[in-house]
Every structure is written in structure tokens, then in C-alpha cells.
């Protein structure tokens, strides 16, 4: 029932993780089907996919999408220039390839041959129109407006043939990855009415009613070979209803299933759970601009107090992996060589004693906006008590939690996932970030980030991002204690679909599925 809760989770999570299996799905039908039970792909049938709904909030405007259900629908109707793979690295879609100038301020994208649903071929003008539409200052709900504000529209142009040249206001080595995020699908320059989507997607819209129904049919001229199923339905149902519908054969796919459901259907042959390992991130944040967390020794002490295994066992029902106080485990640029932080109450107590903050009461602001927030906060409060600290947990409103958290409590609950590591750093850890949950504001960090972002050499850039992450790991206010698995489920007839983290190419992707 609580869609907005879900939407928040989803926005907070733009991310992905491990799950190399997810990649097999793009190796063509053969590779996919082995994983799912074999057989030659077959055309036909109706595929019903279920997501948490958003009522009137739902949209098929690809630039205003914000819910998972919106993204599944726009993914069927539209394509992006670039998508992200399971490690959050950019992979080609409508852009067959790309290159930049030496300082990453001008990017040339070579477009594929693709047709829009109205028969018009994809051209550079469509891409430029798309950017202009996203950046339209009057469009207050266009999600990617902030991310893509780096584009200098006036200097961008069609560079002959099928090449589009995008000029940027500042060097951005990650620009292709930005195009793989929420709200960036390419629309036709004839696109005007969201009710009549003009995209290049594998499905063409039949009917859509916000909060009610969505039916699309296969688009036979899709550049990527098109879909197998005749008809795609993307529908809304709460978590319990999704599970029941799947088990009763009333749906073929359920997005975001619960750990409870996964356990319940272990012996059920009619349903298969697709678990993307450790796909999202759960954290307790400490506000570094407030006493006592303005002292890195204190944040370190708190990080040492967390019993991560227990948090994962209890809060995530064991379906996840422990975190190491950095965002983005398993993603491109994640420094895997940083030793795992473990519990050390003695050391924590010593640090707290040195800083003179033993026997304090600190307030932790949380809410039920995301599954596990309140449980994790409560459990962590118990763990902190082992060092003589009192953590007072306050539960606030779900709908406005992410705004309120910035001003309430010296500690808070934080959840994040499907976005690239550079995006996370940009959106959450810069002095200027609107949603800086840990109030981490350091000029030297901002400058180091700017350097990393404009470094075109990938190895060097990886090293620089790794160093930024390490700084956060050592001194920052993020206590990333766990990475829950991302659970989807399919009925046993479904082939061509594997575990995939949210917001990646293979997440809720229906053009390669077929029914046995």
C-alpha cells in the first residue's frame, strides 16, 4: 500500500552489485536459456509483470519516471543511449560507441540504426531534442535534470551522419554512465504527448492508465531483434498480492519480493526466486558537522561498535552481505582491498573515552520508510549500549523522511543502492550535495572528487575514486553495515531472465524473456 515508501527506497537505490550471471542474458538467447532451464526461445504469449504501484503518481513519461513500475514501462517503450551493467559500468544501447576529447568536455556518440514506433529513423536531432526536453527549466519533475545539467546545449550539435556531439560545461569522464541513469531515455523529436510515446523500445504501447494497467505489444522492427512475447502487461500489486499472483499463475514476474516470500517458496516448483547478491546498501549515518561526530575518532568508534553479522542476520534475515562503511560493493571503482572492519568494543571504548563522550545519550532519527530501518536502528542502539552509550531511537514520518533526516537527530538511517559510485559521491558526499545524509562537507574532498571526475585515464581515475572511498571509510560518517540481496521472482515457465540489481540493463527487462 505504501508506494511512496517504495519510491523513496528506489530513488535512494540506484544501484547494482555483483551478479555476474546477470550479464549472461545479453549474450543472446542461447546463453540465457541455459541458466533458466534450456530450450529454444519461442515467440508468443502474454507476460504479466508486477510491481509496487503508485496510483495517480505512475507515469510513462520517461523523463518524469520515478517509481520502479514507471521504469519497467519506459524500458519497454524506450531505449537509452547507454545502460549500466551489473557493476554499474556503462554499456552501449542506442549509442553503438562513444569517445571524448582529451579533457572529457566534448563527447561524440555514434548512433545505431534504429526505428521509432512511428517509423521515423533515429537521428542526432532526436538526441538533442531529448536533452533539451529533460533540461527544460519548466519541467520540475524531470529526474535527470540535475545530473545532466553538465550538458552545454548551445554548443552540442549533430556532427554529420549518425554522430551527435555533446559539449559539457566541465570535464566529466563519467558522462556515458550518467546517460544510463533514471530519466534519460531517448525520445523522438516528434514526441509531444506523454500519452502517445514515441520511442524505439522493443514494445509499442497499446493502453495505459495510471495506477491501473499497462499493455504493450511487440514492436517487430526493434533494432535489437525485438521481443519474444506478444504482449507485455506491467501491473501494480502490493508485496503479498505479487507473491500470491505468482504462485497462482496469475503473473509471470514479481519485482522486489520479500525475504519471507523467498523462504516460503523454496520448495515451490512453480516459482523461481532471482536473487542479485548484495545489491543495495544499508547504513547508519552520523552527522559529521555536529558534536560529537565532528571528531573522526568518534565516528570510527561507532563503526567499531556495530556487530555487522548480527545486523545482517536479524534485519536482512541473513539475505545479504556485511558492509565495510563504503558505498558500492561490487561496483566499478570499489576498492576491494580495504580490510573489512570488524567489531572491537574495547578499542571503541578507548576512542570514546579519549574523546570524552562516554555515557552520552545521542538521538538517532529513523522511520519505516524502508524495510529494516527501524529494526537496524533499534538493534544498533543495543550494540552501542555495550560501550556505555545510550542511543535514543526516534521514528518519524515516512513520506518526508529523507528531507527531515537532514535536520533531525545527530544520527540517522540511510539506504542506498543502484547508482554508480561517482554518482553516489556526487549526490551524497559533496559540500553542495542536496542530500548529504552524513553532513560530510570537506573542501579537500570536493576538490579531489573534481579531479577524479575529470581524469580520462581509467586506471588513474579508479585509483582516485578508491582514495576518496578510503577517506570516507576511515573518517566519514557512513556506517555501512550491510548490503541486502535484491529479490525478484518469476514463474517456472519464464525463460531468458536472471538475477539483476535494480536500475541496471537487465533489471525488469522483458524484451528477451520467453515462455516455455
Amino acid at each position, binding site marked *: 500500500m*505504501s508506494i511512496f515508501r517504495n519510491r*523513496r527506497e528506489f530513488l535512494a537505490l540506484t544501484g547494482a552489485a555483483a551478479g555476474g550471471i546477470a550479464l549472461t542474458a545479453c549474450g543472446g538467447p542461447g546463453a540465457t536459456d541455459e541458466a533458466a532451464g534450456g530450450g529454444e526461445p519461442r515467440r508468443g504469449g502474454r507476460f504479466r509483470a508486477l510491481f509496487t504501484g503508485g*496510483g495517480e503518481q505512475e507515469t510513462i513519461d520517461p523523463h518524469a519516471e520515478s517509481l520502479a513500475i514507471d521504469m519497467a514501462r519506459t524500458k519497454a517503450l524506450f531505449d537509452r543511449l547507454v545502460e549500466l551493467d551489473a557493476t554499474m559500468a556503462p554499456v552501449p544501447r542506442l549509442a553503438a560507441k562513444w569517445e571524448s576529447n582529451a579533457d572529457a568536455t566534448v563527447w561524440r556518440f555514434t548512433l545505431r540504426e534504429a526505428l521509432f514506433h512511428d517509423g521515423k529513423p533515429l537521428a542526432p536531432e532526436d538526441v538533442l531534442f531529448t536533452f533539451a526536453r529533460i533540461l527544460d527549466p519548466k519541467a520540475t519533475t524531470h529526474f535527470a535534470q540535475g545530473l545532466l545539467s553538465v550538458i552545454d546545449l548551445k554548443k552540442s550539435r549533430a556532427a554529420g551522419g549518425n554522430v551527435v556531439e555533446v559539449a559539457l560545461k566541465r570535464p566529466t569522464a563519467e558522462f556515458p554512465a550518467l546517460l544510463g541513469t533514471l530519466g534519460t531515455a531517448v525520445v523522438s523529436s516528434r514526441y509531444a504527448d506523454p500519452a502517445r510515446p514515441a520511442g524505439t523500445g522493443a514494445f509499442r504501447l497499446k493502453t495505459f492508465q495510471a495506477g491501473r494497467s499497462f499493455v504493450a505489444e511487440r514492436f517487430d522492427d526493434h533494432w535489437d531483434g525485438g521481443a519474444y512475447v506478444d504482449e507485455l502487461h506491467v501491473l501494480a500489486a502490493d508485496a503479498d498480492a505479487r507473491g500470491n499472483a505468482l504462485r*497462482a499463475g496469475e503473473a509471470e514476474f514479481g519485482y522486489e519480493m520479500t525475504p519471507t516470500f523467498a523462504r516460503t517458496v523454496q520448495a515451490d516448483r512453480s516459482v523461481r526466486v532471482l536473487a542479485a547478491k548484495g545489491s543495495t546498501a544499508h547504513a547508519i549515518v552520523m552527522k559529521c558537522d555536529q558534536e560529537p561526530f565532528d571528531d573522526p575518532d568518534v565516528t570510527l568508534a561507532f563503526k567499531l561498535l556495530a556487530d555487522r553479522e548480527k545486523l545482517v542476520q536479524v534485519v536482512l534475515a541473513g539475505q545479504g552481505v556485511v558492509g565495510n562503511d563504503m558505498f558500492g560493493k561490487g561496483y566499478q571503482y570499489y576498492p576491494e582491498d580495504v580490510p573489512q572492519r570488524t567489531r572491537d568494543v574495547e578499542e571503541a571504548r578507548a576512542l570514546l573515552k579519549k574523546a570524552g563522550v562516554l555515557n552520552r545519550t545521542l538521538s538517532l532519527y529513523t522511520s519505516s520508510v524502508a524495510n529494516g530501518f527501524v529494526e537496524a536502528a533499534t538493534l544498533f542502539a543495543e550494540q552501542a549500549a555495550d560501550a556505555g552509550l545510550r542511543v535514543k531511537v526516534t521514528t*518519524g514520518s515516512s*513520506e518526508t523522511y529523507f528531507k527531515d533526516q537532514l535536520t533531525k537527530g545527530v544520527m540517522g538511517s540511510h539506504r542506498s543502492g543502484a547508482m554508480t559510485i561517482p554518482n553516489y559521491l556526487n549526490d551524497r558526499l559533496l559540500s553542495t550535495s*542536496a*542530500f548529504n545524509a552524513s553532513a560530510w562537507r570537506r573542501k579537500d574532498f570536493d576538490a579531489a572528487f573534481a579531479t577524479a571526475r575529470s581524469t580520462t585515464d581509467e586506471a588513474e581515475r579508479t585509483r582516485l575514486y578508491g582514495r576518496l572511498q578510503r577517506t570516507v571509510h576511515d573518517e566519514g560518517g557512513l556506517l555501512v553495515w550491510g548490503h541486502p540481496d535484491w529479490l525478484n521472482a518469476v514463474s517456472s515457465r519464464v525463460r531468458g531472465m536472471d538475477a539483476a540489481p535494480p536500475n541496471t540493463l537487465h533489471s525488469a527487462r522483458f524484451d528477451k524473456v520467453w515462455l516455455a
Partner: protein
Amino acid sequence: MRGYAFQRLALGAAQLALLAVLVFALTALLPGDAADVRNNEDATDAQVAALREQLGLDRPAVERFTDWAAGLPTGDFGTSLVSGGPVRDILADTVGTTLVLGAVTLAVVLPVAVLLGVASGLREGGRLDRTVTSVTLALNAVPDFVLALLLVAGLSLKLGLLPATWVGVEAGDLLAEPALLVLPVTVVAARVVCLLSRQVRAGVVSVLGAGYVVQARRLGVPRRTLLLRHVLPNAAVPGIQELARVGDNLVGGVLIVEAVFAVPGVATALVRAVEARDVPTVQGLALVVAVAALLFSLAADLLCHRLVPRTEVLR
């Protein structure tokens, strides 16, 4: 009786006006507004402010309320802050579904409750009475959502007899596929039947013991006439009054049923609108529910009057 009806309707209109003000005020008390909720957490303050202005949320609350109220007489329920379309469309989409669910439930509840109540009341203390009493008591103690999950697990998932959800169902499919209605109606009806049948039973028992019935029986009035002419109408009154009173059980049941069976109805829409701080939609839905409750209770009272004109319903 007509005067009474008019009086009640006038009172109802006043109640509705009060309700509209209350709902508006309460929604305003919730933390955050539609602009806060609708924007993502990366939105800049400027974006939120622009959206707030675009939605007209920067205008004084009183002005927004009077604007909305001014549209009501012309059937204009205002504009949704979320979809940007008329609230009337949202009402049209959701009210029909819930009405079908409610009407079918009522059509099941009434005969079943009356039959059970009368049958057990006529043989007070008999085996049937004891069985009905214990079953209804037990069933009444089972929360709606538990009953829903048990029924789905058993009848849909295990035996495959009935649909487990309304996933993918179009509004027009409902009457074509009555099987869809069985489980949701059973869940909503179960508790109401329990409450009602016990009232009817109590009514029958008390009427049977009343002096005039005992006297009529003594005078040799045939049992069937006595039952149909005197016992039933009098016994039905507390039942119907109870029915008007258990409206909240019906609404609560529908809310749970809509969630469990993925029914796109009024309750789901109302919860979503509150979460989205979509004030015009919340108010539109609240008014529709209130009008329905009002008419329902008026109809119940008028029916009671018709059955037993001498009772004090006219007050």
C-alpha cells in the same frame, strides 16, 4: 416520513461541510506537502519551490480550500496534485469497483445473516443455535487479513479453485468472471454476517418472548403468519440498525481486501492520496465515502420505519 428524510439530508449536508473542513485541516497537519513528497531527494530547493508554485501550494490554505469548495456545486472536485487531471476521473475509476464489491457483499450478507439469525433464534439453545453462535463468535475473532491469507493459501494456491488476486483485471471483467468476487466478498462479508446474525437472533428471541406474540399464539394465529407478519419485521429492526452501524467494519474489510487481492478501489486510492499529500483527491474520496455512509444509514433508518412504523426511529 418524507419530512424526516429531508431533515436527515439537511443534517447530512451540514455534516459533509464540517467533514470537508476537518479533512482539509487534518491533511494540512501532516508533515510535508505534495511538492515535498513528489520530488526526489536529489531535487534542489529551487525545484521544490518551483513545483510548489506550479501546484499552487504557495497560496494561503483558506484560499485553496474555498476555491475547491466553490467548484463542488458544479460537480468539480478540483485537480489532483499528483496526476494534474480532474479528481472526478480518479473517483470514476475507483468508486465503481468498490461499489460492485460493496453491493455484492451486501447482497450476500443480508439473506445469510437473516437466515442464520432467524433459524438460530427460533430454536434458542438448540443444537443449531449453539453451533451458529460458536462459529460466528470464532469467525468474528479472526482478523480480516488473516482470513484473507488463509482463504487464498487454501482455496487458490493449494486447490487452485479461485483466483488469488485481481491482477490484470479490467473493470468490465468483474461481472463476466464472478469467480473473482468470491474470496474478496467472503472476507468482507464474514465479519459483518457474524455481527448481524447475532443481532437478528437476539431480536427474534426477544420478539418471541414478547407479550403480544405470546398472546397471538394463544389466539391461534398460524405460526407462519406470526413469523412473517410480526416476528421477522420486528426482529429485523435491530439487525438493520446494526448494519448501518457496522459500516466501519465494511470499510475496514474493504481496505484490507483491496490490499490483499490487488483491487484498484477507493480504499487503496485514499491511502495513496494521503501518502502523496494529494489534498483535493483525499477530500474528493472522503466526501464520496461520507455520502455513501450517510445514504446507507438513512436508507437503513427509513427501512426500519417502513418495517415497524411505530418504533422510535422517527424521534
